[in-house]
C-alpha cells in the first residue's frame, strides 16, 4: 500500500513538472487532464472518494474543457483580426 502511494505521489510530481515545462498550450491541456486523473487516483488511494470524484469531474474534465474553449476563442480571435487587417489592406490598396 505504502509503495503504491509513494509511486503515485512521485508520478504526480513528475506529471506536474512535465505540465509546467510543456510550453505548447494545447499539449499542456492534455497533460493537465492526465494530471487531473492521476490526482484523482491518488485521492482514491488516500481514502477520499468524495474528493476523488470531484477532482475527476472538475480537474480532469471541466478545467481542461475551459482551457480548450478559451484556446479556441483565442485562435478565432486571431483569425478574425487577420481577416480584418486583410480587408483593411485591400481597402487601402483600392
Amino acid at each position, binding site marked *: 500500500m*505504502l509503495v503504491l502511494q509513494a509511486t503515485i505521489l512521485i508520478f504526480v510530481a513528475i506529471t506536474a513538472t512535465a505540465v509546467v515545462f510543456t510550453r505548447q498550450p494545447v499539449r499542456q491541456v492534455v497533460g493537465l487532464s492526465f494530471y487531473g486523473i492521476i490526482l484523482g487516483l491518488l485521492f482514491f488511494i488516500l481514502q*477520499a*472518494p*468524495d*474528493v*476523488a*470524484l*470531484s477532482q475527476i*469531474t*472538475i480537474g480532469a*474534465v*471541466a478545467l481542461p*474543457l*475551459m482551457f480548450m*474553449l*478559451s484556446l*479556441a*476563442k483565442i485562435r*478565432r480571435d486571431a483569425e*478574425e483580426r487577420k*481577416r480584418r487587417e486583410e*480587408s483593411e489592406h485591400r481597402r487601402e490598396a483600392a
Partner: protein
Amino acid sequence: MNRRVRRWFFLICACAIFGLFVSAVRQMPTFGHYRGPYGDILNRETVYERHITDVVTAVNFDWRGIDTLGEESILFLSVIGTLVLLRKPSSEVNDSHDENDTADKRKGREIPLPSAATRVATLGLVGPLVVFGLYIVAHGHLTPGGGFQGGVILATAPLLVYLAGDLKSFKRIANHETVQIGEALGLLGFLILGLPGMIRGGAYLRNVLPLGTSGHVFSGGMIAPINVCTGVAVSAGLVAVTYVFLEHTLETRLRGRR
C-alpha cells in the same frame, strides 16, 4: 529584471522556501498518523447526531455549512464575473455582423454536422448521464458524492447536446437567462433554508427537519434539500461559464447554418 536574472533570483528564493518548509514539516506528525481531535470527533458523532453516513457531506453542509454558502457564493460571483468580463465590447455589438457573415460564407467555413452515429451515441448518453448526476446529488448524504459532484456531472449533459451538433437545443438549454435564474434560485434556496433555524431561536443553518433513519434517502434533515440547491447552483454555474466561452462560436455556427 531581465528573464535570466529573474529566474536565478527566483530559484534561490525557492530553495530557501523549500528548506524552511522541510524543516517545518519534520516536526509534524508523521504521514499516516493523523491525531487531531476534530476529525475523529466528527467521525464518531455524525451518524448519531445527524443520521448521515457520509461524514464529508455532513461536514460540508452541516457542521461547517457556512463555508459552503461562502464557496457557492464564490462560484456565483465568478460566473457573474465571467459574464461581465467576456461581454461583447460595445464597439462590436452592432457593426461587423454582416461582414463576418459574408466572410464566413465566402470561405465556406460552415462546420459539417457530426455523423448520424455520433449524434445518436452522444444524445443517447444524455439520459443516463442526467440520471447518474441526479443520483449522485440525491445520495450525497449516504455515499460519496453530493451537490458539487452531481452538479458538475449534470452540467456536462448540455455539452453533450452541443457536441451532438444540436446547437439550437443547446442554446435553449444553456442561454444566460435560464441558467442564471437556476443558479440564483439554487443559492437563494440555500440561503433561505438556513433561516428557519434562526427563527426557531437556534442559529443560522441549524437543522429543523426530522432526521429520519440513517441509511435512508430521506434522512439527515436539512442536508438533502441543501444538497439539491447546491446541485442546481453548481450545474447552472458551470453551464453558464462554458456557455460564455462558447457563445461566440455558437452564434457563428448557427448563422453559418442558416
